[in-house]
Protein backbone atom coordinates (compact mmCIF):
# COMPACT_ATOMS: atom_id res chain seq x y z
CA UNK A 1 0.00 0.00 0.00
CA UNK A 2 1.12 3.56 -0.73
CA UNK A 3 1.27 5.49 2.53
CA UNK A 4 2.15 9.06 3.46
CA UNK A 5 2.55 10.48 6.94
CA UNK A 6 2.04 13.90 8.51
CA UNK A 7 4.14 14.78 11.58
CA UNK A 8 2.83 17.76 13.56
CA UNK A 9 4.99 17.72 16.68
CA UNK A 10 8.67 18.36 17.37
CA UNK A 11 11.18 15.71 18.44
CA UNK A 12 11.79 14.85 22.13
CA UNK A 13 8.99 17.17 23.36
CA UNK A 14 6.26 14.84 22.14
CA UNK A 15 5.73 11.16 21.37
CA UNK A 16 4.17 11.92 17.96
CA UNK A 17 7.48 12.04 16.11
CA UNK A 18 8.64 8.71 17.61
CA UNK A 19 5.29 7.07 16.84
CA UNK A 20 5.40 8.34 13.26
CA UNK A 21 8.90 6.98 12.79
CA UNK A 22 8.07 3.59 14.29
CA UNK A 23 4.90 3.40 12.18
CA UNK A 24 6.88 4.14 9.00
CA UNK A 25 9.56 1.58 9.94
CA UNK A 26 6.89 -1.07 10.59
CA UNK A 27 5.12 -0.27 7.29
CA UNK A 28 8.38 -0.50 5.33
CA UNK A 29 9.24 -3.79 7.05
CA UNK A 30 5.89 -5.17 5.92
CA UNK A 31 6.68 -4.23 2.31
CA UNK A 32 4.50 -1.12 2.08
CA UNK A 33 5.69 1.99 0.29
CA UNK A 34 6.09 5.14 2.40
CA UNK A 35 5.89 7.83 -0.26
CA UNK A 36 6.27 10.97 1.77
CA UNK A 37 6.65 12.18 5.34
CA UNK A 38 5.46 15.78 5.65
CA UNK A 39 6.61 17.86 8.62
CA UNK A 40 4.27 20.64 9.76
CA UNK A 41 3.62 22.72 12.89
CA UNK A 42 6.51 22.12 15.35
CA UNK A 43 7.14 18.93 13.37
CA UNK A 44 9.53 20.98 11.22
CA UNK A 45 12.01 20.77 14.10
CA UNK A 46 12.54 17.09 13.22
CA UNK A 47 14.75 18.32 10.38
CA UNK A 48 17.41 20.43 12.14
CA UNK A 49 20.94 19.12 11.62
CA UNK A 50 22.17 20.72 14.84
CA UNK A 51 20.14 18.31 16.96
CA UNK A 52 22.49 16.57 19.41
CA UNK A 53 20.79 14.37 22.00
CA UNK A 54 22.78 12.75 24.84
CA UNK A 55 24.59 9.60 23.69
CA UNK A 56 22.30 7.22 25.53
CA UNK A 57 19.21 8.66 23.79
CA UNK A 58 17.84 8.01 20.32
CA UNK A 59 18.83 10.47 17.58
CA UNK A 60 15.45 11.29 16.06
CA UNK A 61 16.77 13.48 13.24
CA UNK A 62 19.48 11.02 12.18
CA UNK A 63 16.88 8.24 12.23
CA UNK A 64 14.68 10.13 9.70
CA UNK A 65 17.75 10.85 7.53
CA UNK A 66 18.68 7.16 7.46
CA UNK A 67 15.12 6.17 6.56
CA UNK A 68 15.10 8.71 3.72
CA UNK A 69 18.35 7.33 2.35
CA UNK A 70 17.65 3.61 2.86
CA UNK A 71 14.09 3.60 1.55
CA UNK A 72 13.90 6.63 -0.76
CA UNK A 73 11.23 8.24 1.42
CA UNK A 74 10.52 11.86 0.45
CA UNK A 75 10.94 13.88 3.68
CA UNK A 76 9.37 17.31 3.18
CA UNK A 77 9.45 20.27 5.59
CA UNK A 78 6.74 22.93 5.18
CA UNK A 79 8.37 26.19 4.11
CA UNK A 80 5.93 28.53 5.91
CA UNK A 81 5.91 26.55 9.17
CA UNK A 82 9.70 26.25 8.90
CA UNK A 83 10.35 29.95 8.36
CA UNK A 84 8.22 30.80 11.42
CA UNK A 85 10.54 28.59 13.46
CA UNK A 86 13.92 29.45 11.90
CA UNK A 87 14.13 26.25 9.88
CA UNK A 88 15.96 27.11 6.63
CA UNK A 89 18.08 25.28 4.02
CA UNK A 90 21.28 25.97 5.94
CA UNK A 91 20.11 24.11 9.04
CA UNK A 92 18.45 21.23 7.19
CA UNK A 93 19.72 17.70 7.93
CA UNK A 94 20.49 15.39 4.96
CA UNK A 95 17.53 13.58 3.44
CA UNK A 96 15.06 16.45 4.03
CA UNK A 97 13.86 19.08 1.58
CA UNK A 98 11.84 22.27 2.06
CA UNK A 99 8.69 22.78 0.02
CA UNK A 100 5.14 24.11 0.21
CA UNK A 101 2.01 22.87 1.93
CA UNK A 102 0.87 21.74 -1.50
CA UNK A 103 3.13 18.72 -1.03
CA UNK A 104 0.90 17.61 1.85
CA UNK A 105 -2.23 17.82 -0.31
CA UNK A 106 -0.37 16.09 -3.15
CA UNK A 107 0.47 13.26 -0.72
CA UNK A 108 -3.20 13.03 0.24
CA UNK A 109 -4.16 12.79 -3.41
CA UNK A 110 -1.52 10.26 -4.48
CA UNK A 111 -1.29 7.98 -1.44
CA UNK A 112 -3.86 5.38 -0.46
CA UNK A 113 -3.54 6.40 3.19
CA UNK A 114 -2.41 9.64 4.83
CA UNK A 115 -1.74 9.05 8.52
CA UNK A 116 -1.53 11.99 10.94
CA UNK A 117 0.69 11.99 14.05
CA UNK A 118 0.13 14.93 16.38
CA UNK A 119 -1.16 16.11 19.73
Amino acid sequence: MKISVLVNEGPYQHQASDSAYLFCAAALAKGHEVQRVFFYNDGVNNATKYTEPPQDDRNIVARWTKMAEDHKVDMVVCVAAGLRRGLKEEVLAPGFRISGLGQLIDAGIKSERLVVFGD
Partner: protein
Amino acid sequence: MAAKKFMLVNRKAPYGTVYALESLEVVLITAAFEQDVSVVFVDDGVYQLKKGMQTKAIATKNFSPTYRALEDYDIDKLYVEAESMAARGLSADDLVAPVQVVDSATLAGLMEQQDVVLSF
Protein backbone atom coordinates in the same frame (compact mmCIF):
# COMPACT_ATOMS: atom_id res chain seq x y z
CA MET B 1 -8.21 12.70 -11.66
CA ALA B 2 -11.41 13.20 -9.66
CA ALA B 3 -11.13 15.35 -6.56
CA LYS B 4 -10.65 13.51 -3.29
CA LYS B 5 -12.69 14.24 -0.20
CA PHE B 6 -10.52 16.00 2.39
CA MET B 7 -11.81 16.71 5.89
CA LEU B 8 -10.00 19.09 8.24
CA VAL B 9 -10.87 18.45 11.88
CA ASN B 10 -10.22 21.30 14.30
CA ARG B 11 -10.11 20.26 17.95
CA LYS B 12 -8.27 23.07 19.73
CA ALA B 13 -9.02 26.59 20.94
CA PRO B 14 -8.06 29.32 18.43
CA TYR B 15 -5.41 31.01 20.54
CA GLY B 16 -2.91 29.60 23.02
CA THR B 17 -1.44 27.25 20.43
CA VAL B 18 -0.78 27.62 16.70
CA TYR B 19 -2.87 24.61 15.61
CA ALA B 20 -5.99 26.56 14.54
CA LEU B 21 -4.06 29.07 12.44
CA GLU B 22 -1.89 26.46 10.71
CA SER B 23 -4.93 24.24 10.12
CA LEU B 24 -6.63 27.16 8.39
CA GLU B 25 -3.63 27.39 6.06
CA VAL B 26 -4.11 23.72 5.14
CA VAL B 27 -7.83 24.34 4.51
CA LEU B 28 -7.03 27.12 2.03
CA ILE B 29 -4.33 25.12 0.23
CA THR B 30 -6.63 22.10 -0.07
CA ALA B 31 -9.25 24.30 -1.74
CA ALA B 32 -6.58 25.78 -4.04
CA PHE B 33 -5.86 22.20 -5.20
CA GLU B 34 -9.55 21.96 -6.12
CA GLN B 35 -10.25 19.11 -3.72
CA ASP B 36 -13.59 18.51 -2.03
CA VAL B 37 -13.06 20.19 1.36
CA SER B 38 -15.05 19.81 4.58
CA VAL B 39 -14.08 21.60 7.77
CA VAL B 40 -15.14 20.28 11.17
CA PHE B 41 -15.06 21.95 14.58
CA VAL B 42 -15.22 19.74 17.67
CA ASP B 43 -14.19 19.97 21.34
CA ASP B 44 -12.53 23.34 22.07
CA GLY B 45 -12.23 23.74 18.28
CA VAL B 46 -15.75 25.20 18.29
CA TYR B 47 -14.28 28.34 19.91
CA GLN B 48 -12.40 29.00 16.63
CA LEU B 49 -15.71 30.25 15.19
CA LYS B 50 -16.80 32.29 18.22
CA LYS B 51 -17.80 35.87 17.43
CA GLY B 52 -16.12 38.86 19.03
CA MET B 53 -12.52 37.68 19.36
CA GLN B 54 -10.22 40.48 20.60
CA THR B 55 -6.57 39.49 20.24
CA LYS B 56 -4.78 42.82 20.58
CA ALA B 57 -3.84 42.28 24.22
CA ILE B 58 -2.04 39.00 23.42
CA ALA B 59 -0.25 40.56 20.42
CA THR B 60 -1.58 37.86 18.13
CA LYS B 61 -3.20 38.23 14.71
CA ASN B 62 -6.99 37.87 14.80
CA PHE B 63 -7.79 35.38 12.04
CA SER B 64 -11.55 35.15 12.62
CA PRO B 65 -12.27 37.07 9.37
CA THR B 66 -10.70 34.21 7.40
CA TYR B 67 -13.46 31.82 8.52
CA ARG B 68 -16.03 34.26 7.19
CA ALA B 69 -14.15 34.38 3.87
CA LEU B 70 -14.07 30.60 3.36
CA GLU B 71 -17.20 30.82 1.24
CA ASP B 72 -15.25 32.92 -1.28
CA TYR B 73 -12.91 29.95 -1.74
CA ASP B 74 -15.91 27.67 -2.39
CA ILE B 75 -15.49 26.10 1.04
CA ASP B 76 -19.07 25.88 2.27
CA LYS B 77 -19.10 22.58 4.14
CA LEU B 78 -18.51 23.69 7.72
CA TYR B 79 -19.68 21.30 10.42
CA VAL B 80 -19.85 21.98 14.13
CA GLU B 81 -20.49 19.16 16.57
CA ALA B 82 -23.67 19.84 18.54
CA GLU B 83 -22.43 18.13 21.72
CA SER B 84 -19.27 20.27 21.81
CA MET B 85 -21.35 23.45 21.40
CA ALA B 86 -23.84 22.45 24.09
CA ALA B 87 -21.09 21.57 26.56
CA ARG B 88 -19.69 25.09 26.12
CA GLY B 89 -23.00 26.95 26.17
CA LEU B 90 -22.71 28.04 22.54
CA SER B 91 -25.34 28.23 19.81
CA ALA B 92 -25.07 28.84 16.06
CA ASP B 93 -25.84 32.54 16.72
CA ASP B 94 -22.51 32.84 18.55
CA LEU B 95 -20.51 31.88 15.47
CA VAL B 96 -18.89 34.09 12.79
CA ALA B 97 -19.87 31.93 9.81
CA PRO B 98 -22.91 29.93 8.74
CA VAL B 99 -22.35 26.30 9.72
CA GLN B 100 -24.20 23.02 9.86
CA VAL B 101 -24.66 21.84 13.42
CA VAL B 102 -24.54 18.04 13.49
CA ASP B 103 -24.51 15.45 16.27
CA SER B 104 -21.49 13.22 16.77
CA ALA B 105 -23.14 10.20 15.13
CA THR B 106 -23.81 12.22 11.97
CA LEU B 107 -20.26 13.52 12.07
CA ALA B 108 -18.93 9.97 12.34
CA GLY B 109 -20.91 9.12 9.20
CA LEU B 110 -19.40 12.09 7.35
CA MET B 111 -15.88 11.07 8.43
CA GLU B 112 -16.55 7.59 7.11
CA GLN B 113 -17.14 9.05 3.63
CA GLN B 114 -13.78 10.90 3.45
CA ASP B 115 -10.64 9.90 1.58
CA VAL B 116 -8.35 11.98 3.80
CA VAL B 117 -8.96 13.19 7.37
CA LEU B 118 -6.45 15.66 8.80
CA SER B 119 -6.84 16.60 12.46
CA PHE B 120 -5.36 19.56 14.27
